[in-house]
């Protein structure tokens, strides 16, 4: 039953892809078919994988494809099912959103091709999450990369889009090479490509092999997940792609890397050495901190969100790293807690990042710019979008009572408990990581004050922003769904936690929801007695009661003595957009404080007419340095290209030279090869 449901979802996606490609001459029909198929397929797979999550045994489905040399099969075990749920939940909302979003492209772009790749992307991601052997996994993995590439560089007349797409595809392919090697090493160890035969396999290998395979997997998946320092493609690829694609890319495509890590770390490895956990934890902290720090410096709305994806991937990896360390230290329950924290944040991030990108998409569509400095005051013109974006912003900042707070709280609890698990100095890592996580969260809050206030509040900064129009109904619907789910995942945390039982059972042999949920499902606890509790539902209840009892009546009474007046304009004739605080100005203090990291470069040119006190025009330009590109990637690329150019001398065009190559090879082989 579940198998049929899942397959039907796959088939619907496939059909949608083909049909929309076939309809490429009728944009309207193509759009409807593509989005409709995407939506239907997502709903079908949502049902299937939700059912599979709680089914007793993994569901294996063989696909009638390929040649006898390989098996194309999917396997829905709890881990796969969970990620599949994440995918289809997000995909449903995004497909709904796309109905309205793609309308804007009609006539200008080939929506048939778009629909094809859009459905193909969903299809391939679903298969990545559920592939049952290494070969099929890699096929799905690369198809996903391909579809993502085509969608990222969909507006291929823009150079940025093309370059971003190529960078993404090349990096992801390099990562795939690492994965290929790692998988094949495993396969040669057990003589099979099946994931089921990889179970706990890695731990039976020699330490050297273990370490190598681990690092190969870590970096291979790290490229897709966007772990620092492999993140450079994300801030380039997310902004240039259409916003519904960015929502999927950031919401779920990055998660394929996370899925791979979860699969490897918690399925292939039994009890990994301690250092692996510490490496993951370290990378997680680095990604989280650097991600948010660079996000703060952006005033391109979508690139800002892209940097935050890196940050959140870091937070997820903090959870995973802690889980690995606990596993190494033999603390199954704590490992379960950390793993739950990581996975919970994975799901949350899919929700609120998808929401934020869709909000950004509506804003960009309304204002025709990604530059925040040209927006402003949109909350009056696009109230629903603004509200949804605000929900997303509060959620991603990890503030109660929304879902972001739950996963961060769980992470804190895991880190807190980690201190007691070992006597070695490594235990210091836990609180340090915790404090840096706190810094990250606070900076994220700062960043989202900017990201919400600059585009949505105060006065419009450009005529486009001044007459922006609210997004269409389906777009609003798509955003609202995710906003509601962000709230629900926060308030209903205790009802959501049992979802992780099958996974922790499968990975660690522990079912911890009964320990986590307290007070008849009112409160969440870290799973130890007297470990502290939270109850977001309770907080929400308090706010409701307080609001109803005090705020509402009082606000109504005070309305009578409320008058509207001009804001304080510092004595200038009226407040204009020029007086407003800009995004750049907002992040100025942090730019100064972390200047050692940013190495900001600024340039001010002022033209004077009368006296140096009255500049007639000022040009201010400020940019920061991205060390990984400047110091790591660009030099590497240049080196390789230079070497290649030197190698071209081999083919210098002289026949005598060519013959000489053969001659020398022959002589050498005759002298040393024959005898």
């Amino acid at each position, binding site marked *: 039953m579940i198998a049929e449901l899942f397959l039907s979802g796959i088939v619907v996606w496939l059909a949608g892809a083909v049909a929309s490609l076939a309809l490429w001459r009728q944009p309207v029909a193509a759009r409807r078919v593509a989005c409709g198929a995407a939506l239907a397929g997502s709903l079908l797979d949502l049902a299937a994988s939700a059912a599979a999550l709680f089914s007793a045994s993994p569901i294996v489905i063989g696909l009638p494809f390929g040649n006898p040399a390989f098996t194309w099969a999917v396997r829905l075990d709890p881990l796969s099912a969970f990620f599949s749920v994440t995918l289809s939940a997000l995909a449903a909302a995004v497909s709904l959103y796309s109905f309205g979003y793609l309308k804007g492209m009609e006539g200008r772009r080939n929506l048939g091709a778009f629909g094809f790749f859009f459905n193909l992307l969903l299809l391939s991601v679903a298969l990545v999450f559920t592939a049952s052997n290494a070969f099929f996994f890699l096929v799905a993995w690369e198809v996903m990369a391909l579809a993502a590439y085509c969608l990222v560089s969909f507006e291929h007349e823009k150079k940025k889009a093309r370059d971003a797409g190529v960078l993404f595809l090349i990096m992801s392919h390099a990562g795939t090479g690492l994965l290929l090697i790692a998988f094949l090493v495993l396969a040669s160890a057990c003589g099979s490509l099946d994931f089921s035969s990889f179970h706990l396999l890695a731990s039976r290998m020699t330490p050297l092999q273990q370490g190598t395979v681990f690092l190969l997997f870590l970096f291979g998946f790290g490229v897709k997940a966007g772990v620092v320092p492999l993140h450079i493609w994300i801030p380039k690829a997310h902004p240039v792609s259409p916003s519904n694609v960015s929502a999927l890319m950031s919401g779920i495509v990055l998660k394929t890397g996370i899925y791979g890590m979860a699969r490897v770390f918690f399925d292939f490895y039994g009890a990994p050495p301690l250092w692996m956990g510490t490496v993951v934890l370290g990378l997680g902290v680095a990604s989280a901190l650097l991600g948010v720090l660079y996000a703060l410096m952006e005033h391109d709305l979508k690139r800002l969100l892209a940097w935050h994806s890196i940050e959140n991937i870091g937070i997820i990896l903090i959870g995973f790293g802690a889980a690995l360390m606990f596993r190494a230290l033999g603390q199954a329950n704590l490992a379960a807690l950390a793993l739950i924290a990581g996975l919970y944040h994975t799901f949350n991030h899919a929700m609120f990042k998808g929401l934020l990108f869709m909000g950004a998409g509506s804003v960009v569509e309304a204002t025709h710019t990604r530059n925040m400095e040209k927006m402003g005051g949109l909350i009056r013109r696009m109230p629903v979008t603004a509200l949804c974006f605000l929900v997303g912003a509060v959620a991603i900042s990890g503030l109660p009572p929304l879902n972001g707070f739950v996963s961060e709280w769980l992470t804190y609890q895991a880190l807190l408990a980690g201190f007691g698990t070992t006597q070695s100095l490594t235990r210091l890592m836990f*609180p340090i990581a915790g404090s840096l996580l706190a810094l990250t969260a606070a900076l994220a809050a700062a960043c989202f004050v900017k990201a919400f206030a600059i585009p949505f509040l105060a006065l419009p900064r450009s005529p486009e922003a001044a007459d922006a129009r609210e997004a269409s109904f389906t777009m609003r619907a798509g955003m609202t769904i995710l906003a509601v789910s962000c709230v629900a995942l926060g308030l209903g945390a205790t009802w959501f936690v049992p979802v992780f039982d099958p996974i922790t059972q499968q990975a660690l042999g522990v079912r911890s929801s009964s320990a986590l949920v307290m007070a008849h499902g009112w409160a969440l606890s870290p799973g130890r007695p007297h470990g502290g509790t939270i109850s977001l539902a309770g907080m929400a209840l308090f706010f409701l009661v307080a609001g109803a009892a005090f705020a509402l009546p009082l606000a109504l009474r005070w309305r009578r003595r409320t008058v509207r007046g001009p804001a304080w304009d510092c004595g200038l004739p009226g407040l204009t957009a020029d007086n407003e605080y800009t995004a750049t100005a907002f992040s100025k203090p942090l730019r100064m404080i972390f200047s050692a990291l940013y190495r900001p470069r600024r340039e001010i040119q002022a033209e004077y007419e009368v006296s140096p006190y009255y500049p007639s025009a000022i040009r201010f330009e400020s940019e920061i340095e991205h060390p990984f590109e400047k110091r790591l990637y660009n030099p590497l690329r240049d080196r390789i290209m230079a070497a290649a150019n030197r190698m071209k001398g081999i083919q210098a065009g002289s026949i005598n030279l060519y013959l000489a190559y053969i001659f020398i090879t022959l002589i050498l082989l005759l002298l040393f090869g024959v005898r």
Partner: protein
Amino acid sequence: MIERLMENAAQFLLLLVLSPLVTGVIRTLKARLQTRRGPGILQPYRDLRKLFSKGIVIPETASWIFTATPWVVFFSTILAGLMIPMVAAEAPLGLFGGVLAVIYLLGLGRFFLALSGMDSGSSFGGLGSSREMTISALAEPAMMLAIFTVAIGAGSTGLTEIAGAAIGQNWRFLAPSQMFAFAALSLVLIAETGRIPVDNPDTHLELTMIHEAMILEYSGPYLALLEWAASIKQLVLMTLLINCFWPFGLQPTWFGFGAVEGICWLLAKLLLLSCAIVLLETVNAKMRLFRVPEMLAVAFTLGSLALISTFLF
């Protein structure tokens, strides 16, 4: 259930009543130390009454965020306040959250405050929000380290448990780790409550102000709400500090005469802490904004020292 509700009501009232008093006391003490007479301890109450009776002016540029913010700030602060033990060892709303929840609830308030600062469109608001978010962000890691130290000691993030653990073993606050943590946390407290040398709560239209700049556009009852919330926040943080480290006199329960004794203890400890703050404010001058990170770095160092010393000693 009923008891729990009554406890909550009691602490709710205590927070509302006590917080202006603390502000008043601090102001008066400061005035005396500067050989002024000062407006008297009850001045904050009068201010609130006056403001509540006044009209409201809302900038034309502002949106619903502007009117919603005071309520959010006020109630999230109150909620945070209900999660800490003030008189009884058991926090009335301990079930709803521990120290982490307290910090993040205050964070929620700050988030909306910063938004409303930007909402009016006047450049002062943006200035205030930007600085507020920066400083609070930088204060976060130190605070978290200090709290980790305390929480690790108690093996819990629930404030009830933390206070309980402290009650269990007297003089524990003399342990080096506790001292370091206390120092770190009090530095953070100064930054968070916006006191000299980080911010000057008594000024207006001074280009270095932070909190006042954010609420510049507010007037009447909304301003009252925000001011009140600010002093409640100050009370909450001070209580958090003292009850985590010197939980003397915390009563087993809110009921009976114990409550009176507990309140007296609380007042005594608050007075002590206020004196310390006043001294600090009087001897220090407000520092430049870009010096603040240095102070917070010191706090961070103290916090990590606290951690390390937890397993050295």
